[in-house]
């Protein structure tokens, strides 16, 4: 299957899922529109539309940056949260909620974005101007560990158990009750970050043969590295800031896509973005089906989808090693 056909199929699927997200429970929607057209319009424009846009955009940046990072690091286990911006965003949100008293999902998002950008700046500062891929990852792991520890410290010193409950649920990831303000807040850094990562797609194939060969083929490896790191930091930071931690999409989606594009890292980037958008929108549809009277959290669903896939990867690796 060529990349173009795959992209068209995934784009069609993403459109169908987006429509399903927008027109979820159509019978109820029609009924409400008959009784109170303004309420139906408000449900569509103020609740469903932001949820749909954020589902598509966040899924896309998670898939895209996952593919970009795996290509850069030549490591199939790389995921967007490896650079520390996700944990930085979580820490920023906890701080904003507890100690600055900024409430609501938009307040958490503001804190989260500040945390993500701070983590990114710290990463660039720690790795230095002549950063190698290894030094960036080491710095990312260190920042991620520090931000996780500080988040746990803040949670354990929580001034109010209700605030703790709010933040814990926020950290599990959700697209519910997000508004167009969230969209306007998160979309610009996600677009800029996604564009930065995507701009490396032509050169990143050369990295499959190592950084030296990529340089000898005329690629500016240092520039490519910084574009992916800054792009991932911005886009994933914004995503976590508005929707909480949504794991596994950035890790799993590139694996699903790669066999269809001949395992070329650059060719996997656009389909990974489209498949990420599909997967997150599908997961968000799934969480709307109440289980035991509760709406599941998005991060829980994506992790439950991702873990079996990981197990399959391990089993396949074992089978190959044995053959």
């Amino acid at each position, binding site marked *: 299957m060529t990349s173009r056909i795959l992209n068209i199929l995934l784009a069609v699927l993403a459109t169908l899922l987006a429509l399903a997200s927008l027109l979820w429970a159509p019978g109820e929607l029609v009924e409400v529109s008959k009784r109170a057209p303004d309420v139906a319009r408000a449900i569509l424009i103020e609740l469903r539309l932001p949820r749909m846009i954020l589902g598509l955009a966040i899924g896309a940046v998670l898939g895209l940056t996952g593919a970009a990072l795996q290509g850069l690091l*030549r490591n199939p286990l790389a995921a967007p949260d490896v650079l520390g911006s996700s944990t930085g965003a979580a820490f920023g949100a906890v701080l904003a909620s507890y100690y600055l008293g900024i409430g609501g999902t938009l307040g958490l998002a503001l804190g989260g974005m500040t945390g993500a950008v701070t983590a990114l700046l710290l990463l660039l500062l720690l790795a230095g101007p002549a950063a190698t891929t290894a030094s960036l990852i080491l710095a990312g792991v260190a920042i991620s560990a520090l931000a996780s520890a500080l988040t746990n410290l803040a949670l354990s010193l929580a001034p109010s158990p209700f605030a703790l409950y709010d933040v814990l649920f926020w950290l599990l990831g959700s697209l519910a009750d997000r508004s167009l303000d969230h969209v306007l807040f998160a979309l610009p850094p996600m677009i800029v970050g996604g564009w930065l990562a995507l701009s490396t797609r*032509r*050169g990143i*194939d*050369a*990295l*499959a*043969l*190592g950084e*030296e*060969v990529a*340089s*000898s*083929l*005329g*690629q*500016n490896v240092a520039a490519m590295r910084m574009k992916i790191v800054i792009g991932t930091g911005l886009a994933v930071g914004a995503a976590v800031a508005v929707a909480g931690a949504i794991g596994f999409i950035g890790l799993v989606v590139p694996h699903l896509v*790669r066999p269809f594009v*001949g*395992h*070329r*890292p650059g060719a996997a980037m656009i389909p990974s973005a489209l498949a990420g958008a599909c997967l997150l929108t599908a997961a968000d549809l799934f969480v709307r089906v109440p289980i035991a009277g509760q709406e599941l959290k998005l991060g829980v669903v994506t992790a439950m989808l991702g873990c079996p896939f990981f197990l399959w990867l391990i089993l396949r690796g074992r089978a190959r090693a044995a053959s």
Partner: protein
Amino acid sequence: MTGLVATGLARPPMLQPTSLALRPGEVLGLIGPNGSGKTTLLRALASLSAGPGRVTLDDTDVRALPAPVRARRIAYLPAEREAGWPMRVRDVVALGLMPFGGTDDAAIDRALALADVVGFADRRIDHLSTGERARVLLARALVGRPDHLLLDEPTANLDAHHQLAILDALRGEAARGAGVLITLHDLALAERWCDRLLLLDGGRAIADGSPHDVLSESRLGEIFHVRRAESGWERC
């Protein structure tokens, strides 16, 4: 001076100031014991490391050349045969055309044939043996028909037939006017296939000249601790 010319190229402590000229149409063999600085010199020539010295390509400083222009004219093959993803052989070879900004099926077919990997052009690179993979990566270096080829141990991991076939192909590249610089550990191959040899030891150029002159009995004993014997080489 035409060709790839290095003046005072140094990367301490591995390489002391060294000068050399790779002329169009010649196969220059870089020889020396392990740790003599061959790979360091090759990387410096390919502008992959920073340090003292100057490299010019037809009298133009290579650092002044735009990266894609330099990449079109100088191909580099490292000793590590890395392939991070299980890409198709044909796609791997096509990477060599990246500086040209497009693809060229005829050029890819020619490179596949030169490296004798036509038979598995559609296979994944991780499904090949080490030697087959080495030939695929060599095809990647050859595909753009560069003016200069800098190849680190192009015959490593190859069987005897393919060692000779690859060296024959490289002689063909020199015949079309390319300057070919190869590092070799097999002194018999270096003697037979290279027009000129540059001998390194301890990061210094010890000798530069015809294979006959460079591989004198005294140098073989002094630098490599071997001497010629009926069956090839023996330790001394």
